[in-house]
């Protein structure tokens, strides 16, 4: 459960950070990001990663929370890198799925 929620939030955060970089932004959009857009993506990225840590701590407490958070973040990042490398367009629906998982968990 924690792994899924923290992983989904972490995936969104890492994806935002990664899209703030010119090379990866161009995998989805024709141009490199504008300065404002890059900063916006970075702020959103770090905020989402902080949120995923918050979620893990909230669900699992201070002992297992950080362990689950780091584990899920590494897993999410591995998934992101492989996706970017082989099927960058799949990011769109994977991000949507991650949002759905997070919302589902928040409402449940």
């Amino acid at each position, binding site marked *: 459960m924690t*792994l899924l929620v923290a992983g989904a939030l972490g995936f969104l955060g*890492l994806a935002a950070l990664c899209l703030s970089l010119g090379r*990866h932004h161009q995998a989805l959009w024709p141009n490199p990001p504008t300065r404002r857009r890059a900063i916006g993506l970075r702020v959103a990225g770090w905020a989402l990663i902080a949120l995923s840590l918050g979620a893990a701590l909230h669900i699992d407490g201070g002992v297992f929370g950080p362990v689950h958070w780091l*584990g*899920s973040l*590494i897993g999410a*990042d591995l998934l992101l890198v492989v996706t*970017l490398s082989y099927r960058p367009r799949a990011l769109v629906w994977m991000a949507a799925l991650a949002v759905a998982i997070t919302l589902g968990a928040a409402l449940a």
Partner: protein
Amino acid sequence: MKQGFRQSMAWLHTWSGLVVGWVLFAVFVTGTATYYRTEITRWMQPELHREAAIGPEALARSADLAVAHLTAHAGEARSWFVGLPTPERPLVELFWRTRPGTPPGHVLLDPRTGAPAAMRETRGGDLLYRFHFELHLPPLWGRWIVGICAMVMLVALVSGIVTHRRIFSDFFTLRRDKAAQRGWLDAHNVSGVLALPFHLMITYTGVVTLAIMYMPWGVTAAYKGDQAAYFAETGQITQPRPAAGQPGTLAPVGPMVVRALATIPEPLERLVVANPRDANSTVVAVFEEPHGLSHEHPQVAFAGTSGEVVEVLSGGLRPAAKTFTTMVGLHEAHFAGPALRILFFLCGLMGCALVGSGLVLWTVARLPKAGAAAGLGWRLVHTLNLGTIAGLPAGIAAYLLANRLLPADLAGRSAREVQAFFAVWLLVAVAGAWPAPRRAWRGALAAVAGLFVAAALADLVLARGLWDDPAWFLGFDAALLAVAAGFALISHKVDRFRAPGRARRQAAVPAGTAEMERA
């Protein structure tokens, strides 16, 4: 030395990584496999049938049967270890030590009858677990070598971080369309940086696990070198009771087991009997760890002749000891449920990829020019790379395959399995030394894939009738096939890859990369 700090760190990273890389690769692979040690053991003993539950009376009875067996067959031993049956592994596993320097005795018993269990003899996942920190050498040698390599790994990790200038932008980048060197560097960076928290944690806690052995001076000074006294005083083991030198009779252990089970709410794991024939014998009941990060086994110690409780050890560690046991716990990850265990396993695989790609990168960055013969050093590194990176997985696959192919009642069976492991490893390493590098890699990796497929097929064909839970065995075989597919894919990639022109590539290496690779 006119070089800057970063260049000297790059030099340190390259050479510290190279000299210990082969041992580290083996340590990472066997350590990663050890996350599934009990599963590997279970697969290698398909005769075993799990049980729903084992009650206190059944446990007490099997403990009595175990002691009866040990009294008859290992009466002279200094200490007995009785692994008690669990629903997952309903067997009594006995070890005994007679004197230092002789290998311990070992037998598996049926927990109901006390007769030797009708089961193929194998070391199972324990071979890989032991190899992870002893390399199949005498324990002291193996532990020192692994420890020194792990310390150098820390050096390589930190110098690697310092060398890496664009950690943030390289974090997400895996370029597959560029030159081989670029691709290998990306793979090395990504596997290293993504799982960096894991790599730092696992290497550091790995060294800490054996820290008392590597740095014994504190214990030597404070306890006159008596490590048992140190462990007892910090609350990690029960107080040792020295032998009286008078003969004594061990009281029945069944009632002790019942009493211990009533004291501690965790599952009972094993009994340790010290000086079983002495008037001052001790029986220690060791329980599984309660759920938590820390590696702490609750224990109840009994006076062996009277059966009285002499000590109960359950939690209550002071901060320093707690720090130590938490680090050991993090390293072993016994707390991890199925999903987290998969993540730990993936991180372990990334560690293997980190070390393996680093080793390959050394040779790729120093490829001899077209037409020129490779130097002796390059050939040596290439041969050791192939012998380790393809040889060890081939050995593991052969170990699993031998488990299914050797007759179940063969004398010295478990030793033969280990021989198959090392023979195939050596064979791949030697056979890989002769062909041209690319052909050698392609062939060796394809052979690894073939061996893993063969192990899965041998299980399907030869052991299907023995499975107690077909879905579980099919799942394990599917995992073997997935490993095989991974190796087949890499073999295919090696075969298909066409490097861009060598001369053009050298001229076009960006400054940042050249700095890392030339160092």
